[in-house]
């Protein structure tokens, strides 16, 4: 049994930033992650910034990690956490290897990918779009020679660009077939609307994101033409809102997909199916907060669609209603790595405040302001109404404490 001042579960941008913040304020900090490297989802990210430089997730992760190590943060990687318990203000963290204890526990477990079920999607060669991203940018192994992405959204568009950068052929971004589960993601109009939401950043911001590779007119074409059957090209990849994948076929691995034309409501046009030969398929259903540890810890939750699903109740200081339990990053709602890091700093400062005599009100307020600013400036926004979602969870926090 080991006792630490602060324990952080999750070594992504939120966890690493929180760890450095706690350590530079004199706490002894342990970071636990089940992955073999630090960085979390940040590792795979690669996109062009408005200033023309590249946001390289591997470098960003390395910088955050090295800073934490310099400050004396200890890391336990390859260490899955199974369970949490609280007794008398002490959190016990059960891992596959060891048991740890702390009075100040931060959950920065990030997000998981939502699936989109397609007939044949259990075949080897079908993977989540995030899996293809990590294979390509982190492990530097091609997920295949020629693939298709099912699900059109901000994340899948960004990763399509990354795959094409690595010279991997993506024949199309298309929709899934409509059913009880796929709902909006299978409806061309809804998908179009969600993309147009992003266009408040267009043509300036949206177009700048990958500007060298993307046709500037993409968003305009999206809005004007409804909708060429061959799709609209983005980084030379057809975005086909009027095509749906009805089946993935192959004997014991992906050999191809059946692609059908759909009408504006997402209904299949009979007889329009064609076979497309491929060796991999990416499923892009978006992200949802991975909050299972907060749930087993007994934290209250609130369902906020704008944040990506159920999120643990928390305030702007990243405190939960449970004593000594904090949250930061995508577990609190789906946003970019820079927002996650900023939340991590706030969480770290809150932990320091509770653990030591240090009064850090000014720093905390400043850090909270920085988070809002980072959010406003984010050029990849996963949900168009993220601010509305943030307000909802804060209001729920207030009404929860009124009920107490």
């Amino acid at each position, binding site marked *: 049994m080991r006792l630490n001042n602060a324990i952080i579960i999750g070594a992504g941008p939120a966890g690493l930033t929180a760890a450095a913040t706690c350590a530079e304020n004199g706490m002894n900090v342990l970071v636990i992650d*089940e*992955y*073999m490297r630090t960085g979390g989802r940040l590792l795979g990210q690669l996109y062009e910034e408005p200033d023309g430089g590249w946001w390289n997730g591997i470098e960003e992760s390395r910088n955050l990690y090295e800073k934490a190590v310099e400050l004396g943060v200890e890391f336990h990687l390859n260490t899955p956490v199974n369970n949490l318990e609280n007794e008398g203000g002490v959190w016990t963290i059960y891992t596959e290897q060891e048991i740890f204890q702390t009075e100040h526990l931060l959950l920065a477990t990030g997000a*998981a990918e939502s699936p989109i079920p397609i007939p044949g999607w*259990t075949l080897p060669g079908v993977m989540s779009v995030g899996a293809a991203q990590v294979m390509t940018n982190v492990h*530097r192994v091609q*997920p295949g020679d020629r693939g298709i992405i099912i699900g059109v959204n901000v994340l899948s568009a960004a990763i399509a660009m990354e795959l094409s*950068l690595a010279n991997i052929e993506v024949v199309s971004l298309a929709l899934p077939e409509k059913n009880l589960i796929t709902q909006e993601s299978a409806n061309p109009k809804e998908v179009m609307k969600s993309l147009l939401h992003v266009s408040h950043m267009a043509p300036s911001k949206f177009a700048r994101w990958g500007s060298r590779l993307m046709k500037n007119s993409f968003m305009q074409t999206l809005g004007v033409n409804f909708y060429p059957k061959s799709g609209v090209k983005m980084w030379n990849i057809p975005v086909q809102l009027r095509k749906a994948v009805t089946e993935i076929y192959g004997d014991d*691995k992906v050999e191809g997909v059946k692609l059908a034309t759909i009408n504006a409501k997402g209904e299949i046009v009979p007889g329009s199916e064609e076979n497309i030969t491929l060796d991999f398929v990416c499923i892009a259903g978006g992200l949802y907060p991975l909050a299972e540890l907060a749930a087993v810890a007994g934290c209250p939750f609130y369902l906020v669609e704008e944040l990506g699903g159920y999120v643990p109740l928390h305030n702007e200081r990243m405190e939960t209603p449970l004593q000594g339990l904090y949250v930061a990053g995508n577990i609190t709602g789906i946003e970019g790595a820079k927002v996650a890091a900023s939340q991590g700093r706030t969480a770290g400062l809150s932990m320091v405040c509770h653990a030591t005599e240090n009064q850090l009100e000014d720093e905390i307020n400043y850090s909270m302001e920085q988070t809002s600013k980072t959010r406003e400036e984010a050029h990849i926004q996963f949900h168009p109404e993220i601010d509305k979602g943030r307000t909802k969870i804060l209001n729920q926090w207030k009404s929860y404490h009124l009920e107490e």
Partner: protein
Amino acid sequence: MTRRILDHPILGKMEDLDDSNYVSFQFNEVIYQGIENESLAAALLANGIRTLRYHEESGRARGIYCNIGHCYECRVTIDGRPGVRACLTPVKEGMDVVSGKPISSNEGGVSSEAE
């Protein structure tokens, strides 16, 4: 066939890669090469291997799905230990990896969520 991305227009060349970085490991009794400490899932894919196991009941082929430890689809038996996620396991020299096969009883002896 899948390939390594040895050079990348933005990420550059793979860092300091030479023969000394490669290790040998065994998958279903065949010897393959991988880069030491890369994930087993990546090493297998770089060798063109997509099928990591067969579903315990239906026997259908399965491969990586999420690649970051959430879905457990890539679980294999490593050095006799069943139910290990290939996507989270660093490749080491001499590692002995076997893919799960359809069987009647639960080979892993798993105490999973039960309600």
